[in-house]
């Protein structure tokens, strides 16, 4: 489903983002991407949704080879992937509801299904009461939940969650983790970047551990 083959990412000024990374992920897996600050976790996820291109190596996602994927087809790739961005990336001039709906509108879903799915997701994440608020009117945790809702609402094939609980309290975090496991149980491949090693150990899932761009543990 996702495969990295000797992938290296060098940023400007010879800064190494990722170095010689190789791994495979099968459909339906749940994988933690761990490592300290600046290890390359976000970089790894960005390569999967082709926000960045690798300097070397081959990346395959779903049925696409990202190196040869035409620019016009990138939206198709991204529609199959749900991303919870580390910095949320909410559209500032849209309400909570519009932000989540946007992820559905870019697909060709019929309007009625759109509303149903939207309501379902907002209710599930307990965001309905804030649905007409703009991002700047939301607390940090609420914004993070919107980012999560936007990624989940599309029932993606692959879910990339970059530090999805950094701004949430213990209870909400637990709920989100349960949600992720739930969606994974229903068949979605989940990659979750986190620095919360305690959580990872507790969960007993496969983990990719990065340190300064290099893959050190991979079980």
């Amino acid at each position, binding site marked *: 489903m996702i495969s990295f083959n000797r992938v290296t990412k060098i940023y400007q000024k010879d800064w190494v983002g990722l170095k010689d990374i190789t791994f495979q992920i099968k459909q339906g897996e749940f994988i933690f991407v761990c490592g300290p600050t600046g290890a390359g976790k976000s970089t790894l996820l960005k390569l999967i*949704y082709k*926000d960045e291109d690798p300097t070397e190596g081959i990346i395959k996602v779903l049925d696409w080879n990202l190196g040869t994927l035409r620019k*016009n087809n*990138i*939206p*198709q*790739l*991204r*529609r199959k*992937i749900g*991303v919870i*961005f580390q910095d949320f*990336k*909410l*559209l*500032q*001039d*849209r309400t909570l509801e*519009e932000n989540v709906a*946007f*992820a559905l*509108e*870019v*697909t*060709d879903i019929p309007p009625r299904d759109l509303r149903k799915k939207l309501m379902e997701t907002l209710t599930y994440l307990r965001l309905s009461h804030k649905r007409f608020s703009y991002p700047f009117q939301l607390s940090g945790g609420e914004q993070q939940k919107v980012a999560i809702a*936007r990624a989940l609402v599309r029932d993606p094939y692959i879910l990339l969650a970059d530090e999805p609980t950094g701004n949430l309290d213990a209870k909400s975090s637990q709920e989100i983790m349960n949600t992720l496991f739930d969606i994974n149980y229903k068949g979605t491949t989940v990659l979750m970047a986190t620095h919360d090693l305690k959580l990872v150990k507790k969960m007993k899932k496969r983990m990719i551990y990065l340190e300064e761009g290099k893959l050190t543990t991979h079980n």
Partner: protein
Amino acid sequence: MSLQISIREGIKTITRNGSLFFLSLLVVSISLFLLSLFGLVTINLYYSLRILDEKIEIIAFLDEPADITTLKSNILKIHGVRDVIYVSSDQALKELQRELKETEEVLSIFEENPLPASLRIKLDADYRNAQGLEDISGKIMLLRGVKETIYGGELVDQLKKITKAITAFDIGLLLIIVFSVIFVIFQTIKLTIFARSREIEIMKLVGASASFIAVPFAFEGFVQGFVGGLIAFVLTIITYQIAVVYFFGELYFHFWWFFFGDIACGIIFGIIGSGVAVQRFLK
């Protein structure tokens, strides 16, 4: 993506960034107004010069008893003559009286009408120059019944030169204004889209296709152009009215041409402008 969604998204794009839309709408309106205003000036200049040009004629004074019908048909046979008008000595007097209205009494001192009858000879455009006038006038002089001819001569060429210079200069100015206006409109639209580049970036990351992103912006450009053109048109009409009432008494103005011209320019510039600008962020 359905048209319905695009239009809804387009309207939202406008309302969401109201002040941005408003700012650039005003710039578009003012720019189009300048363009339209200069169009008005150019058209009127063109018409005035054409009227001036058409006034170039040869006047042939006639001997007392003259066979006007034969003379007319003979003159009409000359190459380059477009029309011949007979002005009787009475008519000539009346015309003079009309022109000099206020000094009517002056004329009453004449015991007898001193003006001879004449033929006014209108020429084809190609012959309205010193050479043409001279040639045709020479031919007319040979006809029986013609006492004398008068025409502008050198002066006509002088006039032609000035006319050409003014026209060329006006077109030059018009070109400069057209380019400036297009440029300003494009840059302004670019700026408004620039201000939303972060939003566009996010849309791309969420999987929006290029057209899904671009169409609402194009719609915004369309509305901006349409409304801007309308405002420009209204401003033009106001200026036209003021110019007519206070300065010129009469001006050439074609309501629908200007109406559709302003709006068409607005829409075209608006759509192309936002299309080009948004393209930059879609690469």
